[in-house]
């Protein structure tokens, strides 16, 4: 890619960092309309909330992404069939499909443990020296006691390279997208939304017992996703609280005259001028 095009891609990514994270699809759609020739690049680099479809054969929901798509049809992880049906849609090898079935079973259980609802899907594909997979979760909430409407999307993409007969290296990239409309009359119409992407690389022992590929991948995903959930609250959401409180103080104190406050402020900043400050941060 030329530097001219890279510049446009960086601008697009920078914009996605500023635009409201509860409007990712709309923002991405706008970018695709401005840069139609960079459609593939943008879709590859910008994650958006997952779409869901129903597998009519199994009656189960499954998630849609580029990795289970062929033309306009999507392959269900439950039945390995494409919907709408395709004559000869791309299918994983028998060996890979066996692993994929197990992966979906495990991930479905993980999803139930942490999300108590929602939909999960896993799709695997071969790589020259290993394989790759995407592990997806979508959880929508409506009319919950604390959340009027909300959505959590996890997109985990892992690349596995066999480094030796008993070890493998795993590179996991995780994007979490969250949007919550808070159910609390006192805060009116409040939306808290966010998007984080993290990456981790790990080399693990590989065996047929506790350290199978799926066990190794599963543990990496569980750890990274839990970390990100934790960071989302502790670092990010709580930071917005600090930001609000750096603008207005909810004190019960009396409202003093502006000139009095100005005198106080002058005294404080005069004192402050002789102190060393680390940064502008709060």
């Amino acid at each position, binding site marked *: 890619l030329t530097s001219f095009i890279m510049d446009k891609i960086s601008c697009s990514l920078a914009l996605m960092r500023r635009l409201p994270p509860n409007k990712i699809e709309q923002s991405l759609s706008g970018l695709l309309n401005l840069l139609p020739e960079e459609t593939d690049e943008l879709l590859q680099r910008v994650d958006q909330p997952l779409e869901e479809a129903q597998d009519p054969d199994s009656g189960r929901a499954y998630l849609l992404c580029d990795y289970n798509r062929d033309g306009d049809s999507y392959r269900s992880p439950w039945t390995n069939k494409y919907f709408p049906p395709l004559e000869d849609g791309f299918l994983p090898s028998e060996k890979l499909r066996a692993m994929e079935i197990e992966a979906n079973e495990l991930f479905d259980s993980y999803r139930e443990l942490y999300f108590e609802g929602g939909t999960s899907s896993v799709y695997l594909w071969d790589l020259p020296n290993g394989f790759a997979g995407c592990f997806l979760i979508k959880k929508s909430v409506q009319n919950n006691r604390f*959340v009027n409407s909300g959505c959590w999307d996890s997109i985990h993409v892992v690349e596995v390279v066999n480094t030796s007969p008993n070890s493998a290296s795993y590179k996991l990239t995780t994007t979490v997208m969250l949007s919550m409309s808070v159910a609390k009359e006192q805060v*009116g119409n409040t939306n808290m*939304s966010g998007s984080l992407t993290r990456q981790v690389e790990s080399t693990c022992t590989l065996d047929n017992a506790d350290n199978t590929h799926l066990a190794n991948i599963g543990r990496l995903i569980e750890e990274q996703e839990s970390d990100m959930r934790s960071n989302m609250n502790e670092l990010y959401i709580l930071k917005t609280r600090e930001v609000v409180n750096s603008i207005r103080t909810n004190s019960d104190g009396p409202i003093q005259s502006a000139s009095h406050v100005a005198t106080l402020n002058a005294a404080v900043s005069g004192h402050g001028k002789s102190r060393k400050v680390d940064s502008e941060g709060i």
Partner: protein
Amino acid sequence: MSDEENEVEEITDEEKLQIAQHFLLSSPPGQFQEILSDVRKLLPDGLLGEPLAAGIARAYNTKTNKVVSAPSGNKVVLASAGEIDPTHYVDSKTGAPFAVDHLSLTTLEDSSPSNQDSSREGERAALQSALDDYVASRFVTETAAAGVFCRDGNIIAVVSGERPNLRNFWSGKWTSSWNITFSPGQATISGDIKVHAHYFEDGNVQLQTTKQAPSTSFTYSSEGEFASQIVSHINASEGDLQGGLEDMYANMNDETFRAMRRIMPVKRTKMEWNVNSVRMNRQVRK
């Protein structure tokens, strides 16, 4: 996409500008220039020129009650109620009009005739002074101001504060707008409050709040009483919202966020990534 791989459908320039405008009007606090700079790189050269950009900036500034420094040195609010024309506003603290460049936010002295209604000047001035005290006491950031205007017999009060700290990847805005109408013997106040906070160090998280404050009517026997009742109502409304937000944050981990994803599974142990284990657990659960 594969069907149209070789056809790149282009939208019209007009449609591109609509997209650009939409992005600009969604700017988080203090980041309009950054978004403008990036958006221009995605548009044909020169399509979003200065005059167009200034027009969008004006819409953004009045929508977000932008705080600027007037030629008098006062911090003032760029509010629709104080607009004489797209590039001229009234400094409601001195009554003097000023010119503004919506992109650079610089202001210049001006002598345009003010379009403010002076029929309620007594109440308006008293409220301006009382709200100046309110802003000085409650707003911790220096970039804060109150603007009180009178148009068509109604008083419009705007309170606004912002704190951009882009170097540390955050910015925020708190603003409220109040409409005060008069009828024989009483005044009625209604309004709304908007809060926007953005943190974007290696991520993008935003709080966006809009709340309609309850409407209330009251009687008064002096301009001072008029002003203090309004300030009291604004203080109570804004305080109530901020208190609600504090509660929300305090319970975020265990309530709101937990509805989306638990911190730990119910049994408080991590998952066993073993198919036999999973099947056994499923049997037990049945």
